[in-house]
């Protein structure tokens, strides 16, 4: 084993923006780096609107169109661990333990067009986890309004006498099921910016080096020497991540929770393995392994072939 496996991976944060973090991980295998990427995009639980009960919709947009838009709105999810997945909850459809309710009610009474923004969505669930004194910053299910005016996302426009009245139920979920639950808006992932490993093939007209722009990460690695022979033993070793939050979770939270989710998956399997320990299958494998049951007739209940 090389130096990397003894010391473990190294992390360098290069930049932290308003909703993104840019960091480099060194001395790690591509397999694990890619697992982190995948888990951060697709498997961190967040909150998103999942059910919409439309009471009145006289706007120009169809019900399902608005429902789809509502689903994609990022909702504050820092405290989402306090909620259950609906499938694990004992309620019939949804309840306070597994969902957050939001109301939207807007009616245009003037001649001017009225804009309905996400800030008009009101969280109606009184949750015990929310800290209402703290200026509503961490409240579960609060729509994210990160723009300068604090209006949030435009949901729809209403003409005079048009009305929109609906109830939304936000549930906990992961992006593997639907992308609306993804906490990451964009995920930058790069390794080997000089393409020394030939993992990619640049299309070109005359000269690939001339026609393709250099990656910003090229400054972090040695450029290839001229006529350098291809090193077929080389392995990627340095990974450039840019995690951009969609708003539901803080960028640092996405990274840390991503790792936690991966660990919980592993811990879950270890747990199942331990449960299996008590069943015949594993003990059979184990006793056989010690050589005591060598050559015995296989367990008739289990088809070994």
């Amino acid at each position, binding site marked *: 084993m090389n130096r990397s496996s003894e010391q*473990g991976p190294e*992390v360098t944060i290069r930049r932290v923006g308003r909703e993104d973090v840019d960091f480099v991980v060194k001395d790690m295998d591509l397999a694990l780096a890619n*697992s982190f990427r995948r888990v951060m995009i697709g498997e961190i639980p967040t909150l998103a609107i999942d059910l919409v009960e439309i009471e009145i919709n006289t706007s120009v947009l169809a019900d399902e169109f608005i429902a789809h838009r509502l689903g994609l709105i990022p909702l504050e999810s820092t405290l989402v661990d306090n909620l259950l997945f609906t499938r694990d909850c004992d309620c019939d459809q949804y309840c306070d333990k597994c969902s957050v309710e939001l109301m939207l009610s807007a009616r245009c009474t003037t001649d001017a067009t009225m804009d309905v923004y996400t800030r008009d969505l009101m969280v109606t669930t009184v949750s015990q986890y929310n800290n209402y004194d703290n200026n509503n910053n961490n409240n579960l299910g609060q729509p994210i309004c990160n723009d300068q005016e604090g209006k949030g996302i435009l949901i729809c426009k209403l003409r005079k006498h048009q009305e929109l009245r609906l109830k939304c139920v936000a549930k906990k979920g992961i992006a593997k099921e639907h992308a609306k639950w993804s906490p990451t808006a964009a995920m930058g992932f790069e390794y080997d910016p000089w393409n020394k490993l030939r993992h990619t093939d640049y299309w070109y007209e005359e000269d690939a080096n001339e026609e393709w722009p250099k990656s910003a990460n090229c400054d972090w690695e040695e450029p290839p020497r001229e006529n350098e022979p291809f090193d077929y033993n080389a392995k990627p070793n340095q990974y450039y991540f840019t995690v951009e939050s969609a708003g539901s979770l803080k960028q*640092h939270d996405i990274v*840390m929770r991503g790792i936690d989710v*991966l*660990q919980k998956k592993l*811990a879950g399997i270890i747990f199942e393995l331990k449960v299996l320990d008590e069943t015949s299958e594993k003990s059979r494998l184990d006793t056989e392994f010690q050589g005591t049951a060598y050559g015995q007739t296989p367990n008739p209940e289990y088809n070994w072939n």
Partner: protein
Amino acid sequence: MEDEVEEQSAQVLDPTKFKILPGASEDGSAASFQLMNEDHTLGYSLQYVIMKNPEVEFCGYSIPHPSEPKMNIRIQTYGKISAIDALESGLDNLIDLCDVVEEKFIEQVNSGNYKSEEP
């Protein structure tokens, strides 16, 4: 932390999560396992750490059909340890590896040794 993980797993204990597939060797040094609801996220990393074990001769994973949430993993050892032990130590090692990365990340965040843009 460990108790917490255990508790959570106990809550979602799912007897169909893990299965030993037919095709294990008589002495238990080679076996195939099937994990439900897992994919490349776990598969590739797990294959990598298990292969890092010098006692392991072969480890590979596959997702037999894209429409089924199943992941099969095959482990063959040189005979000193059983396939299940190899899997278990692989899982443990991967958790440790994750711990290191998370620790270093938090350490870096707290050190404040980076450029930042305030809102």
